[in-house]
């Protein structure tokens, strides 16, 4: 199960073991041991909630070094609409594009150009599929993983279609190849706001090569572009001069909440925020005939405008994107036939996802009898635990501790209430209790009196 690749990493040297991440994690993937947060690989869905809450920035998101673009002759920046909306609207898309080119890219291509094809295919899938309804969008990779680990019974509802990112990357490769560029000469670099997308790209399905050569975190490119923008002259650049083609007004909004669902006919719904989505999926599991055809589910609040690597306030970002879409819809000159229409038939077969397997994190044991036995034990243990969910045991709540004990990841005495109880009965010496607490929270939180 550890073949889940993760973009989120905890830096031990920086982690102060405060347990904020442990308590916010929607899949209970974090424990505290020896004063450091520990990630359980098979549970993490790379949603980035921990990254957002960490008070000392001890959680990082892996990326490729910017200098990796330079060995390529053709250096494409694949950029989401969310990126352009990081900047005040006085900076035009043309000017931001110009800044990206100045950084060393040879081409800039907006991901939402791929939305047209995905919309068309989603509509087809919806018209065909009766059994799998509601189709759950696979746009957000954190949601795909959430369903795999926590809602395995719903995996067959996941739509087996890749997102606009893949469509755009594959299209642009084709486009450059048409102009004589070889595969080796072309480096496609995805500028991303999203940890989950990085994780997904770095662990492509078996036997598949990702069309993306590397990922660069949006906050880093934001800083680089900001410097260029401040240095630059007046804004004369026209967006259309700098990019091969631009997405239409509906496509621009694809990554925002309702961006997909509003484009799909039938009964559809959009939910953002990983905790909101979790609550809804709990309900969906219970229904005999779900009332929806299509569900757009996104892990981040305000969807990708709230991606972990964004810099701007998510509501401002979303509003800028909406205002851009309105202008774009009003401006006839923007409605040029999209260059994207070429090679649709070559790209289409590459956009299907072969299979998404369940990866239940809840299973107590592969053996049914053993799993039942563990379930009984968890129940007995829970009756002894105080049910205050304080987290002082280093697990995210009493239920999680009970499971950890049964799975051999913790002991009863990790609970500070149990310690007091055992001490009163003379079964545990206070020194031993202190040692146990140190093993969870690190020695310095106990030993150091003037911290």
């Amino acid at each position, binding site marked *: 199960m550890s073949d889940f690749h993760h973009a989120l990493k905890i830096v031990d040297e920086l982690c102060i073991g405060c347990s904020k991440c442990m308590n916010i994690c929607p899949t209970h993937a974090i424990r505290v041991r020896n004063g450091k947060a520990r990630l359980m690989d098979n549970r993490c869905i790379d949603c980035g909630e921990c990254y957002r809450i960490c008070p000392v920035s001890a959680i990082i998101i892996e990326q490729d070094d910017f200098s990796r673009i330079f060995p390529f002759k053709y250096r494409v920046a694949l950029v989401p609409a969310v990126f352009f909306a990081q900047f005040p609207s006085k900076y035009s898309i043309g000017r931001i594009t110009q800044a990206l080119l100045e950084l060393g890219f040879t081409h800039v291509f907006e991901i939402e150009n791929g939305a047209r094809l995905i919309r068309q295919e989603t509509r087809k899938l919806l018209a065909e599929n009766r059994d799998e309804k509601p189709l759950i969008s696979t746009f957000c990779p954190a949601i795909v993983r959430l369903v795999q680990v926590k809602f395995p*019974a719903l995996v067959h509802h996941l739509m087996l279609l890749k997102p606009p990112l893949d469509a755009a990357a594959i299209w642009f490769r084709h486009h450059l190849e048409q102009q004589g560029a070889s595969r080796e000469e072309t480096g496609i670099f995805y500028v991303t706001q999203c940890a989950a997308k990085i994780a997904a790209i770095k662990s492509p399905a078996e036997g598949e090569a990702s069309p993306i050569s590397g990922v660069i975190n949006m906050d880093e490119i934001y800083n680089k572009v900001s410097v260029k923008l401040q240095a630059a002259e007046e804004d004369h650049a026209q967006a259309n001069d700098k990019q091969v083609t631009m997405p239409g007004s509906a496509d621009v909004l694809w990554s925002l909440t309702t961006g997909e669902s509003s484009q799909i006919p039938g009964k559809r719904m959009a939910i953002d925020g990983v905790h909101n989505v979790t609550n809804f999926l709990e309900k969906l599991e*219970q229904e005999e005939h779900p009332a929806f055809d299509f569900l757009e589910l996104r892990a981040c609040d305000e969807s990708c405008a709230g991606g972990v690597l964004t810099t701007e306030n998510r509501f401002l970002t979303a509003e800028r994107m909406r205002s851009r879409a309105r202008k774009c819809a009003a401006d006839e000159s923007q409605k040029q036939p999209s260059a994207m229409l070429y090679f649709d038939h070559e790209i289409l077969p590459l956009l299907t996802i072969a299979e998404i397997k369940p990866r239940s994190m809840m299973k107590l044991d592969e053996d049914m009898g053993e799993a039942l036995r563990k*379930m009984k034990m968890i129940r007995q243990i829970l009756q002894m635990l105080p049910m205050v969910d304080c987290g002082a045991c280093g697990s995210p709540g009493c239920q999680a501790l009970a499971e950890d004990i049964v799975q051999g990841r913790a002991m009863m005495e990790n609970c500070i209430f149990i310690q007091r109880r055992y001490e009163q009965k003379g079964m545990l010496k206070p020194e031993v209790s202190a040692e146990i607490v140190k093993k969870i929270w690190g020695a310095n939180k106990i030993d150091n009196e003037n911290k």
Partner: protein
Amino acid sequence: MTFTYEIEGGNFSRAGTASSDIKKALKQLDLDYTIIKRVVVSLYEAEVNIVAHARRGTLTADIDPDRIVMVLDDQGPGIPDIDAAMTAGFSTASSRVREMGFGAGMGLPNIKKNADSLNIQSTVGVGTRLEIVVNF
């Protein structure tokens, strides 16, 4: 392993609590997901029926390695004609209940469809007892 729950008639906001709890337990066992879905759907419908039609009831769910047996016992009006009640679309639900989104008359037929065995005993004016079995 046995789980027991009290189910309160008329309390629609709590309807589904027991089935959601049982669902969590089943997800911890290495069961086929289609089986879990069958258990959860049938239990949910039975639970809602107590909320919608009876005064109060209890659920006892027994899980062992090869099956789950769910017994729902309620105090309520009982079902005068069980065959009629089993017909798809048959419902005596009040307009208030329908407004809550329940009362499509598909509950009992859905239980029948999803369970390996369903046994209903009912005494008018006293109550109803459902025994639902799903084999693993």
